[in-house]
């Protein structure tokens, strides 16, 4: 029983990692006032690029870097459409997801079902990993796990305490006032979208080279969309995203725990999606003024217009 709880929690951490990475990226992006619905597609791109590069070169970290690069590059589509052309962000984000899913499916076709033999070793932190239970759950995970938590905390610090972070936030709250401070609002938004894209791709890289060690079309399975919901659940705060993501990681793995009880596996695979609706429902009872949503989220900004 104890073993089962420990291994479930351990796997919950693994399953929560891509959610945390993607949510952190989306938080940064939405803080600048840009709704990016392309997460699912960019994540898929990240997964396929990381897988192909790792498989051909044998260097998982090179795969990760390439994935992040491609994720940022493809996000330019959304940046150009939604910032430069002030297009509708919902439609533009959907288009990015279609592109990402399409290109990843095309690039990954020869690799479907091939196992990845290069392993990214788990990183056991000396001493801490010897703590009973906790050591196994928290301190002997894949490097992505630590990276995700580190990046989330860094993102929190970045948004709250640094000059650029404050510029990003004020762009999302009041772009006009920000512009009068001599800050280039478009540049800030481009930057935020690119950072968000990089994070989404990183999440995808984790899925393909660390989590499942294979590539198959549709392997992101809606995680990108869940990350967008988690952004709301985390109240646009990367630090809160940490526990939100791991809570959802738990929901993802709990289905394997319940399967032996004879519950239909198809019903269990609905759980993360139902849970997403439930948390959004819970958050809606909060006072909207305390939700902290960026005031100009999703609103196109046109320079010089009143």
């Amino acid at each position, binding site marked *: 029983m104890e073993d089962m709880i420990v291994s479930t929690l351990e796997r919950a951490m693994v399953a929560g990692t891509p959610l945390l990475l993607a949510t952190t990226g989306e938080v940064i992006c939405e803080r600048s006032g840009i709704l990016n619905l392309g997460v699912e597609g960019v994540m898929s791109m990240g997964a396929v690029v990381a897988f192909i590069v790792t498989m051909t070169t044998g260097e998982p970290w090179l795969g990760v870097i390439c994935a992040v690069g491609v994720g940022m590059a493809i996000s330019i589509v959304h940046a150009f459409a939604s910032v430069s052309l002030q297009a509708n962000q919902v439609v533009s984000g959907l288009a990015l997801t*279609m592109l990402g899913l399409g290109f990843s499916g*095309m690039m990954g076709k020869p690799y479907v079902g091939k196992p990845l033999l290069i392993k990214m070793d788990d990183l056991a932190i000396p001493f801490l990993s010897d703590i009973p239970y906790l050591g196994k759950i928290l301190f002997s995970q894949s490097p992505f796990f630590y990276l995700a938590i580190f990046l989330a905390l860094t993102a929190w610090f970045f948004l709250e305490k640094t000059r650029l972070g404050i510029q990003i936030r004020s762009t999302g709250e009041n772009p006009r006032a920000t512009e009068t401070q001599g800050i280039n609002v478009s540049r800030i938004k481009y930057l935020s979208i690119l950072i968000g894209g990089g994070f989404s791709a990183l999440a995808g890289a984790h899925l393909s080279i660390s989590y499942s060690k294979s590539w198959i079309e549709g392997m992101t399975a809606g995680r990108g969309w869940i990350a967008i919901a988690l952004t709301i659940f985390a109240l646009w705060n990367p630090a809160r995203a940490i526990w939100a993501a791991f809570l959802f990681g738990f929901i993802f793995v709990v289905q394997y725990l319940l399967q032996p009880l004879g519950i239909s596996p198809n019903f269990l695979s*609905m759980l993360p999606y139902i849970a997403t609706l439930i948390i959004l429902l819970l958050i809606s009872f909060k006072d909207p003024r305390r939700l902290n949503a960026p005031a100009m989220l999703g609103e196109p900004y046109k320079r010089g217009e009143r």
Partner: protein
Amino acid sequence: MMNLIVTDRYDISAVRSFMTNLLSLASGLFMIGLVFLFLGVNPFYAIFKIFSGSFGSFYGFKETLTKAIPLILIGSGLTLAFRAKFWNIGAEGQLLMGAIFASWTGLFLGNDLPSYIIVPLMFFSGFIGGALWGIIPAILKIRFSINEVISTLMLNYICADFLTMLIVGPWKGSTRFGFPGTDNLPDAAILGIIPGSRIHYATFILSILCAIILCIVIYKTRFGYEARVVGENPDAGRYAGIDFLKTTLILMIISGGLAGLAGVGEVAGIHHYLGYPAAVSSGYGFTAIIVAWLAKLNPLLTLISGIFFAGILVGGDAIQISLGLPAATVNIVNGILLICLIMGDYFLRNKIRLQLSK
């Protein structure tokens, strides 16, 4: 020095709108050509193949019309939802729910009832199924301010899992040799087709009627006007006393219900049994988003844009087979065309002049 002067355009004529769309599509096709070039396929040949596969032969055109049925039904419903800025991305799930409801009706009542009763009953139950699945996000949005993009997408996944649960579990047919899927619908419940094609004419006529009726609803009725106000100027709408919940509920009943009808057509007209979600619908709910967008949110124009995108689906299948391209190619084509369309809108909304100065 050269300067680009961007000013708003207020006089958007129908001709300009049409030409901009046409240019957007042309540039989209150009970019798709580049993708083919990158794949090592002659782009002219590939694009020629897409259109000759779908519009070039009588057989291809019949297939195109078959696939246009769900696209027109869903697309015209989406124009209404999108006009109210209700981003219904859940048509795929609403289609599946319609298919589930209709299959239930067909499977469990179809043996005892004559065709002229069971077929309307299936369309009715399919509409109800899609509408029920559509009003959930409407209530969630208006009552609980939950973003409808997320909720409709989550409902897509939930519905697909629910359908799979049915066909591997309680509804699994005894004639399927252990494979997932229901038994075939009784003969009375199967839709008639135009001989020599797969066009199920009842749904085909229904889709054309829906596009026309919705056009009247949007432009000529009070409800259509209110839906547009909700989308374009919600503050004015509140001031004028428009009931947002009622308006959103009605438009999602229509939008979801039409997607449900598309599901009835797919099950009772094409497959004749309920199979895996990916088999019931090949992403019609998502392609229909672009259909609605290309039609500039005018339901009547979805008749054209629906057939156009059905052509791309059919032609896409044709080149996948003849050129050995992956199935994801259609996603790329859709994504590129959608991007080009929204970029084209910029040039429709803004005047851009090049000014030469010293």
